[in-house]
């Protein structure tokens, strides 16, 4: 386990120019300690601050110098007190010298382990590198950096620097910045060092890996180009989800007096016969069954083992394909990385040559992988080139798993060009959209990529660890709100929104969006509940299985029947179909049939009544829109005539309902083709049935 242990020194700039981002630095350090307290409890951490008013470090005492560098905490195993310590970092008052601080950090680390530590040794510097470093007593600044770097390299210390830049370094002296960048970059040439620049507080919080996971190969072996040519490679995971911690179940059954209670919960499985729940079968008497049609076929593990697919371990090239043939959305899993076997020059060259040729020709490699002997499936995936931008790292490949035929579901969706005209954006709308896509820009330059996944921490995990810390102090603490800085991940940046107010307003006013008023009551309520819910409401309904939402999945464009559940919608969809001019006529005819059916087939009751009236209303609107007033007018007269034959009371009610909804004849003013003058239309429903 010793190899997995880590000794780490955080070297933090707390000078005046850093004050603005110190809250984020505090959060980052807190998170680091909180995670270590759970996952790496044996790790040791020390804190060195620079830019402080006081000076307090061993080197000053021993040799003098190293002013304004304070050791906040010497190397020590992580504990709860440390969390308190870093949550409120002292604010410094002077411009500190980071080289001094690094030396203090290195010294502290080396003194601590005295040459017999096999784990990882790490120094992490967070600064804005705005203050010039002092000229050394002898030699140049470069010489000094080289010396420190050499020392680090000899002792196997890895060094990371997080340089805070962007908006946070406005007004800094440009020459100093350049000099400092140059000096810090020197480290990465001489030692195992990494330097990252962060542009905003949010990415500062994501810039440091707060939980260390030692890379483990998932495959070591040969990438077979053919039987004649093989390249030795190691495969690692490049991405793997850091899951929300799985918490153990807690039992509160033990009496509070019991000091030795484990509070553990045992999970017990019992296998009962489906037909007879009282009959319990011991686990070893079970056998696996697989569905074959309506039956279940029992197959013992031994039987399976004998016949199961057992491919040979190995990674084989199938061929090269055009990069455009492998679309991005076909990647189905987390990503691996193929690196030439460490120390093998030939393999490194071969990987480099292939990767660069692939990049040049815009090709990708298709490979078939069996990572382990005994693996029961094969993986087909795509290798894409990863050309190194850093002289010290070799070229490599990224590997993404591709789906098999069985994994791809060929659902058909309507073409956008088949949509009715009302669904097609007009030129003005398209302009608004184009502008929005161009202006609401998160990556104005390659250096300034906001919310780059590499620098975006998981806000949920941050919230969990913070809550854990809160709860450890106060058992009934409430769940804290999302961290303010990390809200940039879940909500649009107010600054960006303000800057693009015009574009956003234009987009908003170009598109008319409203909740469909014709939705069935129940569905509509569900929708409204959801809509009113806002961001903090329970979303049970949306998470419910889709059946529960009672939303039909058929595509509006291809409605060709007026059904019972949503006649109005069906009619609207049908009448707006533009794939054939006949649809209008058909839709009107079908709607008429539907309404007659509703009115005549069953007694005219309240339930049908409202549906029929809704339908009639829709039909009226449709006829006006499509310039078919006669169709509607004739039909309405017919309805009235037919209804006269029925029960008189019902007829009067129907008449009244029509009037209340204003469903009178379509007049000339509404549709030029109508032969009904406006006043006649108005009178039509006013005149009470003559028979009365």
């Amino acid at each position, binding site marked *: 386990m010793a190899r997995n242990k880590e000794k780490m020194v955080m070297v933090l700039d707390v000078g005046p120019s850093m004050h603005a981002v110190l809250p984020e630095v505090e959060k980052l350090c807190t998170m680091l300690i909180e995670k270590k307290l759970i996952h790496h409890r044996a790790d040791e951490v020390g804190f060195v601050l620079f830019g402080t008013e006081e000076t307090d470090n061993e080197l000053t005492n021993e040799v003098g110098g190293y002013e304004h560098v304070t050791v906040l905490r010497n190397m020590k195993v992580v504990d709860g007190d440390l969390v308190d310590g870093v949550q409120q970092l002292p604010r410094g008052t002077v411009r500190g010298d980071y080289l001094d601080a690094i030396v203090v950090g290195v010294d502290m680390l080396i003194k601590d382990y005295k040459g017999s530590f096999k784990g990882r040794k790490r120094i992490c510097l967070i600064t804005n590198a705005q203050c010039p470093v002092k000229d050394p007593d002898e030699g140049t600044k470069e010489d000094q950096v080289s010396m420190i770097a050499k020392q680090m390299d000899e002792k196997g210390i890895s060094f990371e620097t997080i340089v805070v830049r962007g908006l946070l370094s406005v007004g800094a002296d440009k020459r100093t910045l350049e000099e400092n960048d140059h000096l810090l970059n020197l480290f990465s040439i001489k030692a195992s060092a990494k330097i990252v620049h962060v542009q905003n507080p949010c990415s500062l919080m*994501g810039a440091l890996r707060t939980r260390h996971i030692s890379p483990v190969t998932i495959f070591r072996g040969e990438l077979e180009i053919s039987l004649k040519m093989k390249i030795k490679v190691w495969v690692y995971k490049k991405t793997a989800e850091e899951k929300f911690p799985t918490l153990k179940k807690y039992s509160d059954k033990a009496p509070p007096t019991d000091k030795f209670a484990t509070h553990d919960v045992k999970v017990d499985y019992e296998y009962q016969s489906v037909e007879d729940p009282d009959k319990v079968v011991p686990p070893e008497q079970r056998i696996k069954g697989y569905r074959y049609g309506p039956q279940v076929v029992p197959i013992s593990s031994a039987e399976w083992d004998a016949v199961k697919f057992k491919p040979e371990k190995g990674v084989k090239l199938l061929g090269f394909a055009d990069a455009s043939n492998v679309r991005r959305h076909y990647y189905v899993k987390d990503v691996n990385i193929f690196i030439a076997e460490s120390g093998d020059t030939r393999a490194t060259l071969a990987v480099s040559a292939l990767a660069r040729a692939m990049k040049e020709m815009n090709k990708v490699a298709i490979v078939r992988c069996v990572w382990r002997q005994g693996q029961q499936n094969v993986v087909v995936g795509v290798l894409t080139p990863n050309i190194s931008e850093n002289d010290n790292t070799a070229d490599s490949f990224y590997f993404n798993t591709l789906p098999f035929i069985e994994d791809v579901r060929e659902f058909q969706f309507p073409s956008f060009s088949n949509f009715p005209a009302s669904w097609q954006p007009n030129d003005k709308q398209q302009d608004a959209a184009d502008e929005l896509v161009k202006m609401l820009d998160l990556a104005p330059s390659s250096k300034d990529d906001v919310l780059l996944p590499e620098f975006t921490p998981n806000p949920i995990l941050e919230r969990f660890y913070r809550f854990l810390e809160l709860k450890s102090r106060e058992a009934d603490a409430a769940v804290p709100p999302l961290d303010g800085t990390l809200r940039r991940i879940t909500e649009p940046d107010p600054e960006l929104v303000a800057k693009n107010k015009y574009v956003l307003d234009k987009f908003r006013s170009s598109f008319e969006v409203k909740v*469909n008023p014709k939705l069935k009551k129940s569905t509509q309520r569900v929708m409204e509940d959801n809509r009113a819910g806002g961001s903090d409401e329970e979303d049970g309904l949306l998470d419910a299985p889709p059946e529960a939402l009672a939303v039909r999945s058929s595509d509006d464009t291809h409605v060709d029947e007026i059904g019972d559940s949503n006649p109005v919608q069906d009619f609207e969809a049908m009448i707006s179909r533009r794939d054939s001019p006949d649809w209008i006529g058909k839709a009107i005819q079908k709607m008429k049939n539907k309404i007659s059916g509703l009115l005549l087939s069953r007694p005219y009751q309240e339930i049908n009544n409202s549906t029929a009236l809704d339908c009639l209303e829709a039909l009226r609107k449709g006829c006006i829109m499509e310039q078919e007033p006669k169709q509607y007018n004739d039909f309405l007269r017919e309805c009235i005539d037919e209804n006269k034959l029925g029960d008189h009371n019902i007829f009067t009610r129907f008449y009244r309902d029509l009037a209340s909804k204003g469903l009178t004849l379509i007049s000339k003013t509404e549709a030029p083709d109508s032969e009904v003058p406006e006043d006649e239309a108005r009178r039509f429903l006013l005149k009470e049935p003559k028979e009365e």
Partner: protein
Amino acid sequence: MDLDPEDVFKDHEDDEDSEFFLLRDSTKEFVVYLIDASPKMFTATCPGADGENETHFHIAVTSVAQALKTHIINHTYNEVAICFFNTKEKRNSQDLSGVFVFDVAEREHLDRPTARLIKEFGCVEELFAKEIGSQYGIVSGSWENSLYNALWVAQALLRKGSTKTAEKRILLLTNEDDPFRNISGIAKADMIRTTLQRAKDAQDLGISIELIPFSRPDEEFKVSIFYADLIGLEGDDLIEYMPSAGQKLEDMKNQLRKRMFAKRIVKRIKFVITNGLSIDLHTYALIRPTAPGAITWLDSVTNRPLKAERSFICADTGALMQGPLKRYQPYKNEDVKFSEEELREIKRVSTGHLRLLGFKPLSCLKDYHNLKPSTFVFPSDKEVIGSTCAFVALHRAMIRNQRFALAFYGLSTNPRLVALVAQEEIISDGGQFEPPGMHMIFLPYSDDIRDIEQSQLTTKRPAHRATEDQIQKAAALMKRIYLKDFSVCQFSNPALQRHYAVLQALALDEDEMPEIHDETLPDEEGMSRPVVAKAIQEFRTSVYGEDYDEADDKPRESEASKKRKAAAEIVAQEYKNYDWEELADSGKLKDLTVVELKYYLAAQKLPLAGKKEVLISRILTHLGK
């Protein structure tokens, strides 16, 4: 016959020209295989798969059997019926002569296919010879019309269910292009008329009739004589029908076993473009790894299904725990407890909504920004009118500007940043190859990305880079091993196909385990073609040098594996020094030490754990004593 009144009175005239637009996805399919069993089917032959002549009847029956075998896996809820006509015996609910509905026990005539059906159908040819018998059902002097009867029986079988929920089909397999050739005069005209009317009636009820004709090498099946009218073929369709019919039969036989899923909306989400403007999107799962069927645990004695009952027991008191349990995390020497509600609350961020944050060029989406399968989103105007229009506008703008949208997706279990990548519709071979819409790609957080490149950084000098010549050689190689028109879905999963094949073999008690062709293996023949081999050799020489021999550079064995090997050798040596059979028979095993006993166990790859008695009994069991 009690027909579904809705079907009978439905206005079908309007629907005919709208067939094309019927993209509605029926969840189920009801199929009746109507197989001609006339003597002509038994006498006419054509060359079969292995070059020998096979009767049309045999081909028809085996094709249907193949189709059933794929059906049972692909569409396990589809229902089928198998029906022969021109038979001596009759068996059908209307008691019509010349029609025989094939079926097995525990099954309705039209029902989901079962293993038993498939198995017994395999012996149907014997059954014909013995029981059912074949004879022409349409002969002069008789008013019997077996084709008419067959259609009627098929239609009756398909009475079940509504055409709204299920697609109904009749597949007619025959080699007789002129079923009424033996009749003449008014009788013939009358029979043709009534049969066509029968077919039309069925079609009017929403049943589609498809014909799978068999031709003899010397005599082509002429669709135009009679069947063109029956299935409603005209003009160009008629000319193209025969070639396409052959393909149909092939399709029926060679379909890939692939579980089919009905198109369904996974979730309805609200896409917040900006404050005050949200549109409605539906998400669909277009790509999801298929796992071999779900496991149902059975009682190995009775083969009846079991259900697992889970219970939580307090380790301290043994009491049964009820309701949602508290969780805890050890932290700073104490247990911090959380309720389920608190844990849910932590994960709750703008729940269920997709919130637009901005746009980035597509080049910002790196190949390693991936965690799980993408989800497809498509707009819907059903609940929010105007959604589609706004979506189409954004979609077009994103494609034009080659940008993707970055958004936060508040999934209640795992809220994440996602990239929305617009995909244009791609049509190839008349089918939709890529639907238009956006793919939602789940992005990793910094916590999920590992900096492997950095951790590999051990050497201080610059890493090796290929020279221009080496890159050129690699490029030349790439041109040689080029997969033209590569499509992501060109491989079937050999493990899954194997699973299905084994399942079928076991379910049907087949003797032989079928061999599954592994399509994912490289084309070794192609790789060894001289031009390819030359390109590989040149690349190899370029990067590895002339004199490089992989044999010198065998993978260095690790210390551990060397030790393991050495130990295995000792065991193998020692194992030979004993006569195990003899020791077992004479009961002298107990005189050996545990170390000695383990020689046997290790050599036989048996477990080494347990006390001495356990080891001895394990050896005895293994020796079969």
